[in-house]
């Protein structure tokens, strides 16, 4: 989805995200990463998966509609420099935010290996774009419908075992996948940067709802992150916190879907 937001398009850097609302009074504030931006046009591109009420509502927005609130770019931008060989690992929808980072790293003169993973073939996104910047691109699917029939951690491990092991790994995707990537690279001492997507309210460091344990410290993802050293992140705590409202969310989504159905039936 493309959103006209000229100021955000102008300022945003890889690694940053926005918070949006689909309703100004009663809507919730959800963070979404910025996949791409067009400064000339003044637009940003958001790629999201329908997982709950707000994303479902967002999917119903049509060209020309106004989003009541879009704020950003939030979070610290990715630190881009020449590292040498960088492995960029993206899982599912996490491939979207990975793309601008991989692009910037490529421009900074890094050799880029890209590993993309998803449950099945249709869920691999941005493959062409990634192929275009990658020195090497490996695709995996959980069900073997495309590329290697493997988890991303398998090729990641192989990369780490090579003589010229990567200077850095970036992993973005579902929390379990990032956790697995961090565990894979740890024995090899390869620095692994993950990008966390926690529950957020304000996105300016005011509420602490987005906090995670990193090493021995408590960090706020919205201002200190979203990127952290994957070897220090307490993923178990983070994953548990992500599920704090699962039941409520599920219920809300169910109501929303059912109501949507009702409306459709009425209009027919």
């Amino acid at each position, binding site marked *: 989805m493309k959103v006209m937001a000229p100021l955000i398009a102008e300022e945003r850097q890889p690694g940053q995200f926005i918070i949006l609302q689909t309703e100004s009074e009663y809507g919730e504030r959800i963070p979404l990463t910025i996949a791409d931006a067009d400064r000339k046009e003044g637009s940003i591109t958001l790629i999201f998966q329908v997982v709950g009420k707000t994303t479902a509502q967002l999917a119903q927005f049509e060209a020309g509609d106004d989003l009541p609130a879009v704020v950003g770019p939030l979070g610290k931008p990715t630190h881009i420099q020449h590292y040498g060989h960088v492995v960029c690992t993206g899982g599912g929808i996490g491939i979207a935010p990975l793309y601008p980072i991989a692009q910037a790293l490529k421009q900074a003169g890094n050799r880029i290996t890209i590993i993309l993973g998803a449950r099945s073939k249709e869920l691999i996104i941005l493959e062409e774009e990634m192929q275009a910047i990658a020195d090497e691109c490996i695709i995996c699917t959980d069900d073997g419908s495309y590329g290697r029939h493997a988890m991303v951690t398998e090729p990641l491990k192989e990369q780490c075992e090579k003589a010229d092991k990567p200077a850095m790994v970036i992993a973005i995707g579902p929390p379990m996948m990032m956790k697995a990537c961090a565990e894979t690279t740890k024995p090899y001492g390869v620095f692994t940067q993950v990008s966390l997507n926690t529950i957020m*309210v304000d996105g300016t*460091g*005011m509420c*602490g709802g987005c906090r995670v344990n990193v090493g021995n410290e408590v960090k706020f993802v919205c201002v200190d992150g979203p990127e952290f050293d994957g070897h220090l992140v307490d993923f178990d705590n983070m994953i548990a916190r992500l599920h704090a409202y699962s039941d409520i969310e599920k219920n809300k989504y169910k109501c929303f879907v059912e109501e949507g159905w009702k409306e459709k039936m009425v209009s027919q």
Partner: protein
Amino acid sequence: MTTHTSQKNTEDAKKMLVDYLQRVDQLKAKDRTLIPPQEMQLLDPELRSHTLDEVAIGFTADQARIEALRCLQCIKKTCVEDCPVSIDIPGFIHHIATGEFENAASVIRQTSLLPSICGRVCPQETQCQAHCTVGRALKDVDKSVAIGRLERFVADWERINGKVKEPEVKPETGKRVAVVGSGPSGLVVAADCRRQGHHVTIFEAFHKLGGVLRYGIPEFRLPNEIIDREIETLRRMGVEFQTNFVVGRTRKLVDLIEKDHFDAVFVGTGAGLPFFMGIEGENLIGVFSANEYLTRANLMHANETGKADTPMFPSKHVAVLGGGNVAMDAARMALRLGAEKVMVIYRRTENEMPARKEEVRHAKEEGVEFRFLENVKRILGNEKKWVQSVECITCELGEPDASGRRRPIEVPGSNFLINVDTVIVAVGNGSNPLISQTTPDMQVNKRGNIIVDEMQKTSIDRIFAGGDIVLGAATVILAMGEGRRAAAAINKMLADEIQREHAT
């Protein structure tokens, strides 16, 4: 169920007023101190602990006039000295006593911009009412003239009767002022700069305006309608608002000057960085900063299940850690959201609690439990990482510390558990680091507060700051006072510039 002040009280007040007014010229100071302090009408505690309706209903006109007659019109005005914005307190109270409410309002308006807000949230017992002669004569600060309630009465009367005058705006100067943050300090700067004819834009990170007044202080203490009114006045004066705009991210602070050509910038971004205790279990599910808990309820309406998309944690047994206004608000909000048992756990005793006395009293009436001289050592969770209990330790008071309050000392081995499912941490706020992190030249102290001179000017040319971002978490009235000073400095700077431009 009835409200606290019954019909009879209202009639009594009327009779009493007629009586006093008949002999007003003969009333000696002694007689005035004998006039009974008026009780403000409140919603019934049982009723109100389930709604967000405002708890304090306020004085009736008769009550206000009786209360105003208690004022001795002292020559040495200690109350004015203790007011951060030096409102002519005896002056406005005199007008109330004579029933000239509109005049009372104009006296307040000379120095204070948001009286209906200050009358509700100022800590009067440590400011204007602290050294009131009447209170001292009666040896009880609670018996001081109820200055705050009188201020509130006048401001409400003015609003309800449509007497609020929109401040006059001078002809456009062509100068542009950016205000970052829409809390009380920012609102005051906007009004004062706009009055001088400068163009003013307020940038606010949230989708709603008002700062802590909106997302922190709950409706039952400060109805949104009052904040909306104040903002509407600014809008009518021609102030522009840019919501969903995080200065430092959407635009760098200095870019407001360099790219967007603002002539002056005021930073009033507040103390939005919640402190945690740093104890075990603080990241369990069910542990919240008071900021998060209150923001979900106040700003995102999470209490309105079914309507709001932002979820609220279903709390039954709640421990609130801390003893300030924020803790009181969180505790009382938890009750209103359906908690069965809410405990405020505080390391010292009631005497040392920084919260407004009135809020503590209201919280108690509503059924909030207070556990004094106890400190939480860690939070325990179940296998799903949800809060299950807190481990507390008993404290004793020792020698006074740097703040002058007696230091709590833990009694070894006195640990015990309390079962709770929710813990709300309300142990203070630090200053939000976003601006300083993204503005390399901005000088801050080691607490992260922006350093300003006596004119509220920061280390960067044309940039001023005030409110909690300078003071650390403080009060609405202090934030307003700083805003006033900053606006005066900005207005002077711009006036000088205009004069120079004309000269050349």
